[in-house]
């Protein structure tokens, strides 16, 4: 099997990806779908020095850990992230071998392009339906710009970062997890797990908007009792974008029309149904994350490490690369 050194390196790189996604979270964005994709940096850098199977493991662990944090591990979003990340990282690995003279800029552009295309295709199949393709040109052009910036950043990191050198040389220290596990109420966890799964299953069988809304209310109550915060911004953005998409997929009685904009009943109900189903699944998934069913040793190590990284990152000063480097190597120096 995989050696301890390599395992440690993968844990570090996954925690690095988590640190980057928290940094990205701190950067204000005008629109919610504008992503820089900072968390793909470890895979981008890794495509130059990791063997193929480690790239695959890194892609899988990054997708799992990210979706546990966002609480979407039992949802279509996880499948979308996982498959598109796997395809993009495979493409980056291969293109690094083909374009020998390309730097990380070129590799990043290819990776982002493939990643975005597959994300749109998969989200059309699993969530939104074909009308999401109207957003494809916008998302791809945004992705092109951000991936070029990411590529420049990767070139800099590869040149200057001590952490990347240590990772290449397999020179990272294993982490000991102290017994700091929380005592969990197992009876409550079992009830939450059963309820959350039954909400997800019920949401598939019910068609009527009223019943679906009732299930949604119950899953939000469950989420509150399992002490996960409810964010209002996400459901509102989802509902808004679904209503917007329904305008491009006209079917049924015209409820309201203004110039060439026509709101049609069947399409509106269809997209509202999709939106509520997704909200039920996400909310139930949030409740599931609060139980201990995902606390595997490797995942715990990644969480522990990334919280240490973030802590150190916010304490240090200097240039971005310097701060990242110091944060990542802090475990070694202690």
């Amino acid at each position, binding site marked *: 099997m995989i050696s301890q050194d390599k395992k440690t390196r993968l844990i570090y790189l996954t925690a690095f990806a988590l640190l980057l996604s928290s940094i990205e979270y701190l950067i204000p964005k005008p629109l919610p779908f504008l992503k820089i994709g900072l968390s793909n940096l470890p895979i981008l850098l890794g495509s130059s020095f990791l063997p193929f199977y480690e790239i695959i493991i890194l892609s899988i662990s990054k997708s799992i850990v990210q979706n546990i944090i966002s609480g979407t591990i039992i949802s279509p979003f996880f499948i979308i992230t996982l498959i598109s990340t796997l395809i993009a990282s495979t493409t980056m690995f291969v293109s690094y071998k083909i374009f020998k003279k390309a730097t990380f800029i070129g590799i990043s552009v290819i990776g982002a392009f493939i990643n975005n295309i597959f994300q749109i295709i998969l989200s059309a199949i699993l969530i939104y339906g074909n009308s999401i393709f109207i957003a494809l040109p916008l998302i791809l052009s945004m992705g092109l710009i951000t991936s070029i910036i990411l590529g420049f950043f990767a*070139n800099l990191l590869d040149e200057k970062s001590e952490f990347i050198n240590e990772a290449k040389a397999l020179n990272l220290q294993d982490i000991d997890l102290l017994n700091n596990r929380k005592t969990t109420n197992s009876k409550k966890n079992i009830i939450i797990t059963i309820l959350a799964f039954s909400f997800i299953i019920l949401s598939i069988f019910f068609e009527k908007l009223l019943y679906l809304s009732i299930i949604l209310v119950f899953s939000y109550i469950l989420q509150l009792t399992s002490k996960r915060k409810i964010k209002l911004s996400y459901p509102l953005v989802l509902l808004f974008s679904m209503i917007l998409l329904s305008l491009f997929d*006209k079917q049924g009685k015209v409820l309201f029309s203004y110039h060439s904009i026509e709101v049609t009943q069947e399409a509106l109900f269809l997209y509202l149904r999709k939106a509520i189903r997704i909200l039920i699944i996400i909310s139930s998934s949030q409740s599931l994350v609060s139980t201990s069913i995902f606390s595997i040793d490797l995942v715990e190590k990644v969480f522990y490490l990334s919280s240490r990284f973030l802590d150190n990152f916010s304490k240090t000063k200097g240039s971005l690369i310097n701060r990242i480097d110091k944060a990542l190597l802090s475990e070694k120096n202690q």
Partner: protein
Amino acid sequence: MNKKISISDILIIIIAVIALVFIFYSTKTNDNNTIKIQCNGDEYIYDLDTDRDIYLQGAIGEAHIIVKDSKIWMLESPCKNKICLKMKPIDQNGGFIACIPNKILITVENNKEVVVDDISR
């Protein structure tokens, strides 16, 4: 690895931009035909390329309309003379199906034709 931007990078970016322009145009020129049905004062819109059965409540009863293989026709109607059932199925080339007793009018709207109509008016 060469640390500064290389010719291959610029080549990849150019290819990506070309692909982007291509995708942009292929999603733009996607014109689909829509069915418009006027029924008893209400308007209904459907996509011609999606097969479906439509049941509409007209002035005297429920009509059953079929959309199949990009064609549309009336299958059942509560009217007495049943002229609407004998009308030829219509497709993207235009035409109409009407059932006057039940107050139903079915037309197909091609997005290209709409533009021509606007100019000729």
